[in-house]
């Protein structure tokens, strides 16, 4: 129960003023610019764009600065801003097969056409703190070698030719949008993927990890992981044709999963899919694993009762803004609620004490 109370305005104003001062920190240290965050904290910016569900690096960097580096708070700011934007329309589905890849690896085929391109990865680093970064240091230019302009085909396309992997038939249905209609269950795969791609990285990672540890086990290979830029094309009604309205960076993960067949499907490989804004490979792999686990019904698999198979559990708890909103509201004044609880406990105690003393007297 909420009861309006007045007061606290001066305390709130002063708290906000102090927050601004604390955000700035020691003024003897130079202030961080939004451009510095965008360029040098790029993976944090990517996460805020992915979970904020709005691709705009400049805004995400600003949100990180305003939130003092609290990424969930920054995501909250982006989500709030997003709701103020008029919707111009929807893009044509992006063509990830035509991605300009800066990273592209496959754990299933060593000699994949297009090759194994590592890109700017943390993999193979020793995870030792680099104290050179604590001092000002010039970074040597990254080596370059001539690149043949060639399209890099999807690995799953090769398996498809032999019919060894479940098909992903193209279509042009208008997908449901959970930013427009509330999420209702059972959710189709389109809605699940939208929910997962903006879901909390930690939560989706935990769910994915649970499938690897045996809860809804479906042993996954990373068929392909690619990071790069794709053009975004949209039909412009006043022109009557489509133009590219921009270019975004994406991470795509396709998993290939063992599948022994079911009542409806032959033994073949099945697929999980992850597609996330920015360079966000941990999230994209996690998304693919959870997507695959949630597909048990359409593939005719057993429900093993695992959390990652429970669409209600996963989808209703993946959103960190919903979660943090409900969680953090309990710190706000509940004086009246608590007053009634207090009275209840006092009355029960009084009754219990009265009963005890009656028994003692008898």
């Amino acid at each position: 129960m909420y009861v309006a109370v007045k007061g606290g305005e001066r305390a709130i104003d002063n708290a906000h003023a102090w927050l601004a001062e604390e955000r700035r920190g020691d003024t003897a240290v130079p202030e961080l610019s939004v451009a510095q965050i965008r360029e040098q904290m790029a993976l944090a910016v990517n996460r805020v764009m992915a979970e904020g569900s709005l691709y705009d690096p400049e805004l995400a960097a600003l949100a990180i600065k305003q939130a003092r580096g609290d990424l969930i708070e920054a995501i909250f700011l982006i989500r709030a801003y997003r709701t103020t934007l008029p919707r111009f329309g929807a893009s044509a589905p992006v063509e990830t097969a035509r991605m300009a890849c800066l990273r592209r690896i496959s754990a299933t085929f060593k000699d994949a056409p297009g090759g194994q391109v590592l890109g700017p990865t943390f993999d193979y680093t020793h995870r030792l703190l680099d104290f050179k970064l604590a001092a000002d240091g010039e970074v040597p230019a990254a080596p370059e070698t001539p690149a043949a302009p060639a399209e890099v085909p999807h690995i799953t396309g090769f398996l498809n030719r032999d019919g060894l992997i479940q098909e992903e038939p193209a279509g042009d249905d208008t997908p449901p949008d959970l930013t427009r209609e509330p999420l209702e269950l059972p959710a189709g795969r389109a809605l699940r993927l939208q929910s997962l791609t903006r879901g909390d990285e930690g939560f989706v990672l935990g769910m994915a990890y649970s499938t690897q540890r045996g809860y809804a086990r479906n042993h996954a290979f990373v068929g392909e992981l690619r990071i790069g830029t794709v053009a975004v094309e949209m039909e412009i009604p006043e022109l009557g044709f489509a133009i590219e309205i921009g270019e975004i960076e994406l991470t795509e993960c396709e998993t290939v999963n063992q599948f022994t067949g079911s009542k409806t499907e032959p033994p073949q490989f099945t697929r999980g899919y992850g597609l996330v804004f920015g360079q966000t490979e941990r999230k994209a792999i996690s998304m693919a694993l959870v997507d695959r686990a949630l597909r048990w019904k359409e593939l005719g698999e057993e429900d093993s009762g695992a959390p990652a198979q429970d669409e209600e559990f996963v989808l209703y708890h993946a959103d960190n803004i919903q979660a943090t909103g409900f969680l953090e509201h309990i710190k706000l004044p509940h004086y009246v609620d608590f007053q009634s609880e207090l009275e209840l406990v006092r009355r029960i105690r009084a009754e219990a004490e009265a009963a005890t003393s009656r028994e003692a007297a008898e």
Partner: protein
Amino acid sequence: MSEIETRKGWMSLLARAPADRLEQLWQGAGLAPAFAWLRAPEVGGVMVRGRMGGTGQPFNLGEMTVTRCALRLEGGAVGHGYVQGRDKAHAERAALCDALMQTDAATDLREAVLAPLAAEMAESRAARARKAAATKVDFFTMVRGED
């Protein structure tokens, strides 16, 4: 290339162009045509879609910011600007270029603005491709077995 394809080409280039570089080239071209707004610049969102498994049914991935506007030159040519991000001046430049590309100024504009933009954007893309190529793995097999 058809007229529409050509127009698509320059509009797409202007949408993706770095706003400050477009501004520099535009200033360098010394063009200041008079125009009237048909739609003043406005910032909005576009829902970006992906396909399940890269090839399947569409799903909503998330939005991106886009700024659009439309204007008419005194000569009557109508230009549309749809650009990535929230920069209204960028959208205005893009719409002006789109309109001028439909006039006699097209050849000069292409030379002064569009061609250098296209070349620079292609070079920065190529530079990233060369860095990626340098991280391509060359596998070799160690000699196995015993003599």
